[in-house]
Every structure is written in structure tokens, then in C-alpha cells.
């Protein structure tokens, strides 16, 4: 089944934008009507309290996606001690679509491990920000992209509220975005769970229909209120995500941004999207602009963004 086509999305957005002009209330109705995503969307419920930090999921992802060898073995726990400037923990990048980090929240005597990857939003900001239609939200719930269409403008990197898309530096002439695709090509579209879900010894991740996972998550909270924070992260954040989380400690203490709005990021990029037809007319000039922006951002990141600086060093060494 095909996903939301770019055109359909654009049409909806433009209708939404038109509605904004008429009344604010209509926009709200539009937003909430769209919040449910695809009715049969699949999802993953991640129960952080179950994770033991074995990093099998990172290894399985590396094998499934044919990613390059990591700097250290996947069974080397010393990676949990790595921090970059400002105490930032490991992040996903073009060589690792998922990473596990360790947190020591005050509420638990045990450390809490958190696996992160693309959350496969119901209303993906990456998709709406991409002006060449490289992204698709499939009916199974995956947010995938076509590397042959991606021009490497890095709009999606900036738009994503979870900082998930990474920029491939391996090819200077054809840089593309890289991120978790829910194992769509090899698994999800054939009715199989992603590789990380399948390998996890602790069943930290439960794969199933998103709608049912929401019920299951709330049942777990209800059955063991002592074990869980009473919140399902991703049920509503940024309009809902296919990957959702239960935690034994406050979410902000285990690496989550809890300032996230329940409105999809769409509204932020709406203005940008409104200019898209114009883009077609002034494409060359605009593209040069994007290029300049991208290179400028790159320069800034070499000094400002620790993770990119780290990657740059990797490249040099």
C-alpha cells in the first residue's frame, strides 16, 4: 500500500493553512482529526524498565541495515560512559540508526537504559519539511525515504523534533539523509517485526497495532502503578508517534524532551510549505541558498555541535 503522497499532504496542509486564515478553531479540528494516523498503523511499545543495556538491538540493527563496523564491540559497556561536550550522550548517526544510553535517575536505584531511534511520527516533520518529496509515511506506520530523491538539503534534520535524521558524510558529491526505517524494506512490509525488536532478550519492545499498544500500555500502568510513570510518551507528543515509551522514572530524567507539544510540527513548517509552488519557479536561486545555508550550518556545527565535531574527527583519524 502506498503512503501519504506528497501531493495529498500538501493539499491537506494548504487546506489547513487556508482554514487558519478563516478561524483558529477550524485548524484545531483539522489537527485533531489527523492525529490518529493510519488506522492499521503498526507500532512499538518500548518499556524502559525492562532494558538491561545489552545493546543486542544496536548489533541487530547494524547487521540488518548493513551498517559499517562500529568503533567498539557491541558488547562493550564502556560506551555508556562516553559523553561529549555539555554532557551529551551518544546519538544516532549515519552509522548507527539506534543507540542505547544509560541514565541514573534519582527515582530508581537501578540505572535506566534508553534505546533511541526514529519514532516514526504520525505527522512526520521530516516529511513535511522535505521539498523534493523524498519521504513517505507508509500505511504500516514506517517513515521511509528515497535516497535517490534526497538532495541532501538537511531540512528534515532541522525539522525533526527528535534529532533523528543524520547526514551521510561518506559521499561528498551525493550526501544523503540516513535514519531508522522501521526495517521497512526487509521486514515490516512483509509482516515481520524490526530486527531490534526480534533480538531483544528482555522483550523491552512490543510490536503490534499502534491502537492496541496504547491500550496495553495503559493496562500495564494500571496493573503496576508502582513501576511506571503514568504517561505514555508518544501517544500524543507531536501528534503521536508509532514508537511509544513507558518509563520507571520521570521522562526528562531518562533522556526525553518533555516540553514537546501535542500539535504536529506541521504547523511550524506550514509557512514554509506555502512557498513550495514558488520554489518550482525560483528553484535554482533557492537551491543555491540552501547550499549556502547547509555549508554555513556545517561550519557552525564543526565548532558548536559536539556530535558533528566528533564525526569530523573520526573522518580525519
Amino acid at each position, binding site marked *: 500500500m502506498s503512503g501519504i503522497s506528497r501531493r495529498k499532504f500538501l493539499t491537506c496542509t494548504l487546506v489547513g493553512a487556508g482554514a487558519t486564515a478563516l478561524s483558529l478553531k477550524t485548524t484545531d479540528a483539522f489537527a485533531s482529526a489527523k492525529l490518529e494516523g493510519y488506522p492499521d498503523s503498526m507500532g512499538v511499545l518500548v518499556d524502559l524498565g525492562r532494558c538491561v543495556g545489552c545493546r543486542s538491538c544496536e548489533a541487530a540493527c547494524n547487521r540488518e541495515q548493513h551498517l559499517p*563496523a562500529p568503533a567498539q564491540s557491541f558488547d562493550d559497556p564502556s560506551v555508556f560512559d562516553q559523553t561529549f561536550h555539555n554532557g551529551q550522550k551518544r546519538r544516532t548517526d549515519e552509522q548507527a540508526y539506534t543507540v542505547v544510553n544509560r541514565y541514573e535517575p534519582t527515582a530508581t536505584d537501578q540505572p535506566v537504559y534508553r534505546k533511541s531511534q526514529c519514532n516514526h511520527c504520525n505527522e512526520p516533520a521530516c516529511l513535511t519539511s522535505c521539498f523534493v518529496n523524498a519521504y513517505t509515511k507508509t500505511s504500516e506506520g514506517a517513515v521511509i525515504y528515497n535516497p535517490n530523491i534526497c538532495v541532501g538539503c538537511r531540512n528534515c534534520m532541522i525539522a525533526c523534533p527528535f534529532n533523528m535524521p543524520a547526514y551521510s558524510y561518506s559521499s561528498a558529491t551525493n550526501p544523503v539523509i540516513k535514519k531508522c526505517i522501521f526495517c521497512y524494506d526487509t521486514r515490516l512490509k512483509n509482516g*515481520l517485526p524490526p530486527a531490534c525488536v526480534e533480538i531483544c532478550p528482555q522483550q523491552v519492545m512490543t510490536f503490534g497495532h499502534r491502537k492496541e499498544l496504547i491500550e496495553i500500555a495503559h493496562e500495564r500502568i494500571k496493573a503496576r502503578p508502582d513501576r511506571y510513570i503514568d504517561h505514555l510518551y508518544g501517544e500524543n507528543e507531536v501528534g503521536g508517534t508509532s514508537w511509544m515509551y513507558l518509563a520507571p522514572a520521570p521522562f526528562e530524567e531518562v533522556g526525553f524532551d518533555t516540553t514537546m507539544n501535542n500539535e504536529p510540527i506541521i504547523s511550524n513548517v506550514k509557512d514554509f510549505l506555502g512557498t513550495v509552488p514558488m520554489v518550482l519557479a525560483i528553484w535554482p536561486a533557492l537551491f543555491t541558498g540552501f547550499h549556502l545555508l547547509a555549508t554555513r550550518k556545517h561550519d557552525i556545527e564543526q565548532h558548536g555541535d559536539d556530535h558533528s565535531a*566528533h564525526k569530523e574527527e573520526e573522518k580525519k583519524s
Partner: protein
Amino acid sequence: MKIKIIIPVIIATFVFVAGLSPLMAATTPPAQVRIDQLSKDFEPVEFDHASHVDMVGDCGECHHHTTGTASNDPDCMRCHNSGATGERVACRDCHAPDPFSADHLKTTSEDRKRYHRDLLGLKGAYHRSCTGCHEASGGPTGCLDCHLRTEAGDALFRAGKYTPAPTDKAAGH
């Protein structure tokens, strides 16, 4: 007339069979159980069932309410307050080896009122039962304490002879 005799016979037979199976299971536990669900990346585990029976003593600790003993979990006890509820004793008889297969998801989706629809799969059940207890009792909890990795497993974890050459770039800064 005949029916009046047949019914008690049926009931008696049922009671006998239902009572016997858990009892039999409880009296003849296997000394060893071979666990080979992960045999692609790990060697099979020869689980020493006998020594765990000696150590733990209470079958219900791992088998919940299925071995003729009642469950130790007060939540389970609300329904399973006698031990004779199950004839299925092996973990895999309830905990599916493929909990996320399309077929399995279909059955759980169609039966949304089922209390046990959020049941752990086989691998999750083993690990959470084993590591939970091992943590509490000081038993081994490292992956390689119980599992020997195959060559494919070493390749997967980039360990053993597949360990990446050391560089200084991994140290962070």
C-alpha cells in the same frame, strides 16, 4: 436411566485426568532442558532443571499455576487460586516463540478482551524470569554467563575475532 449413569462417569473421568496431568508433571520433572531458540547467534543452553528444582523448591516460582502448585503472585491468584488450572507445563506452551508474527498478532487482535493478551514471548519469558531471579539471588546475569556465542554471534556483536581494531576515536572527549 442410562444418561444418569453416563454423566457421573464423564465427570469422574474428567476430574481424574485433569487432576492427574499436573500431578504427573510435578512428579517427573526433566533433569535437563535444552533451550535452543537462539541457536543462530548462540549455542543452545543446557538448562540444569534439576539443580534449579533443588534451589528454588517451589515449582510455582517459575511455572506460575501450571504444575499443580498455586501461583505465588497475588494478582494471578485472583483467578488461578487452585493450582490445577493448567495441563501445559513447558514455557513454550503458553509463551509463543514468535510473539510478533502476523499470525500471532492476529489471534491477539481478535481476542481483545483476553486478560493475557500482553503475554511475554518465549525468549522474553525466559530472560525476564531468569535474570529477575538471578539479580535478586546473586546468580549470573551477564549474557555470556549462560550463552556461548557462535561464530555468527561474534560477527553480530563485532566481538572475538571480529573486534574492531582499537583506535583513540572511541574515547569521547
